[in-house]
């Protein structure tokens, strides 16, 4: 398995590895708890210094756990909400092959959501709770999905730019210090790179098609460019959580660093497409050896995060509606499973 090659398990087992079920049965004295925390912290610090991995049953600082739950669940929510703009075009996809590819892609996203919810569950947060937080508007998801998918070309732009930005963000997460997250990201990234290629292919076909198709492609690139760049998060001097996440080996590169790198990739690829990026200020800075781009509208970014984007209300309402409409189905499945378990238990007794 490819994921194992990325895993660097420490040679000795963690002294702080414990079974939380045992702990609840044996109430610890304050002294023991303090000793365990000190040992745990020392082990945790060593793992960070060695750039190794923390696993679910290892001791970890409460803030590290909280940060991970927040980040992984937000990521999962983004996958789930991110299904909607693309699902919007499945029934209208203009060829059966494209329909088939798009369906498979959206299905992958549901799968990513599942892995990620599972990874977050290893930190003690139940999926139901995470879902509820999403529907209550307490949890965030990537703002990009609050923009509408207006035309078929948006399927191309989302794949190429949005998934492209996601990959740039996520490849370093394959080395995240929390094991289940890093391993989930290995699989997610493999599938995302397919998604990006299919997006690029859609745009390539359109940009070499009829004038109307080329126009559709350029319009989509124009609309998704700035939101895609903003997916990397606020500029470094305005990103309060970044420093700590980098110290914890969750985040590996700063927002601006990843964004600049991404702009450079886009600039090369857009030439192949025969399209342009709607930013005249893009240039390679010979002194810093970095790509630069024009100003982004961070007010719009904060507006969308605050819930005032074009599709915020629509996306959440769709999720709530699906959840509510499915309540009776989930109840039925639970009731049936319970009855079956009782029946099986009765059989065993008999």
């Amino acid at each position: 398995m490819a994921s194992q090659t990325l895993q660097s398990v420490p040679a000795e087992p963690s002294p702080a590895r414990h079974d939380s079920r045992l702990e609840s049965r044996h109430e610890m004295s304050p002294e023991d708890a303090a000793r365990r925390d000190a040992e745990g912290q020392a082990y945790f610090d060593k793992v960070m210094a060695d750039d190794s991995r923390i696993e679910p049953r290892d001791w970890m600082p409460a803030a590290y756990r909280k940060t991970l739950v927040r980040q992984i669940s937000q990521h999962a929510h983004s996958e789930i909400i991110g299904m909607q703009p693309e699902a919007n075009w499945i029934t209208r996809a203009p060829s059966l092959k494209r329909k088939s590819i798009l369906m498979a892609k959206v299905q992958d996203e549901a799968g990513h959501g599942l892995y990620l919810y599972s990874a977050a569950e290893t930190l003690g947060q139940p999926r139901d709770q995470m879902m509820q937080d999403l529907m209550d508007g307490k949890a965030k998801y990537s703002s990009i999905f609050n923009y509408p998918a207006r035309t078929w070309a948006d399927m191309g732009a989302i794949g190429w730019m949005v998934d492209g930005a996601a990959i740039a963000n996520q490849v370093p997460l394959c080395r995240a210090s929390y094991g289940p997250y890093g391993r989930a990201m290995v699989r997610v990234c493999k599938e995302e790179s397919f998604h990006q290629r299919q997006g690029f292919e859609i745009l390539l076909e359109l940009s070499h098609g009829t004038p109307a198709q080329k126009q559709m492609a350029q319009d989509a690139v124009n609309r998704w460019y700035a939101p895609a760049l903003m997916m990397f998060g606020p500029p470094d001097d305005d990103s309060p959580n970044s420093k700590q996440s980098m110290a914890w080996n969750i985040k590996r590169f700063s927002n601006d660093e990843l964004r600049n790198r991404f702009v450079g990739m886009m600039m090369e690829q857009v030439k192949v497409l025969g399209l342009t990026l709607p930013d005249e200020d893009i240039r390679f800075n010979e002194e810093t050896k970095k790509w630069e781009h024009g100003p982004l509208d961070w007010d719009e970014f904060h507006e969308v995060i605050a819930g005032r984007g074009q599709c915020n209300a629509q996306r959440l309402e769709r999720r709530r509606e699906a959840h509510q409409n499915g309540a009776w189905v989930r109840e039925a499945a639970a009731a049936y499973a319970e009855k079956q378990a009782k029946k099986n238990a009765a059989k065993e007794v008999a």
Partner: protein
Amino acid sequence: MSTPEAVTTNASATDHDGGHGEISVGVAGAGAGGDGMASATRITPGNALRPEDIALAVSRGTATPDADAAELALRLGDDALILAQRLSHWISRAPELEEDIALGNIALDQLGHARSFLTYAGGLDGRSEDDLAYFRREHEFRSVQLFEQPNGDFAVTIARQFAVSYYQFELYRRLAQSSDAMIAGIAAKAVKEVDYHRDHSAQWVLRLALGTEESRARMIHGLAVVWPYVDELFRDDELTGRLSDAGVAVQPSSLRADFDRLTGEVLAEAELEVPKVQPAPGGGRRGLHSEHLGYLLAEMQVLAREHPGASW
């Protein structure tokens, strides 16, 4: 053609305790060429029959259907296409994430079958799968009316899927023996996938029927809503008579006994009765559709028709 009586006659849904993943829904020995138990998701690349391969064979003239086989492929392709279109609407709307994936998977399988059958059908006069899907009008579609019935709630979708998957399984396992090699090849691949669809729908019929009072009421309602359209699946006509004589296909009526028996076993375990409803007159095979199909096609075809001649 001979009906493979030896297979799928000993399965019984009631032999098992019905826990998830344990129920048998008549899958033993299913499929063609003795590899009915092979995984649909682990087909070795050399064996996978993709629509692109069929298109290539058609364009090279190595697989050209005669008029009757083309009409059969059109019927079955339309059935699968219309159902895929219906099911795909569930993606991002299902009761659980797992069902978004499951229904999406079934839709993808159906779309794959549709693409294969339509590509082959188009071999008669040089039309592509997309010509057939996007540039025919409502009365030119040959799907039976069950497939176009609206999704309704989850129970209606499951009821429709239950009837469809048991029908398609019986049909495809026989078509896998077709004297038309391409029909046989497509069916042999499809039957493995449809086998999973049967399992999925049977599991849900049981869960919903035996879950809560509400789910039971909805399941009963769902079956009642779709069952009037079941009869049409099994109607013979002149084409099926000729195809049957030629060994290309079987008469649809010959599938009925196995369908009734196997669905009956699941319904019995679910403590449900076969709905007592009057059969609808149907007519889909002659291009007579319910009022629902026009809307489905309008949505499916709108973009392709805005750009006639464009490639995507």
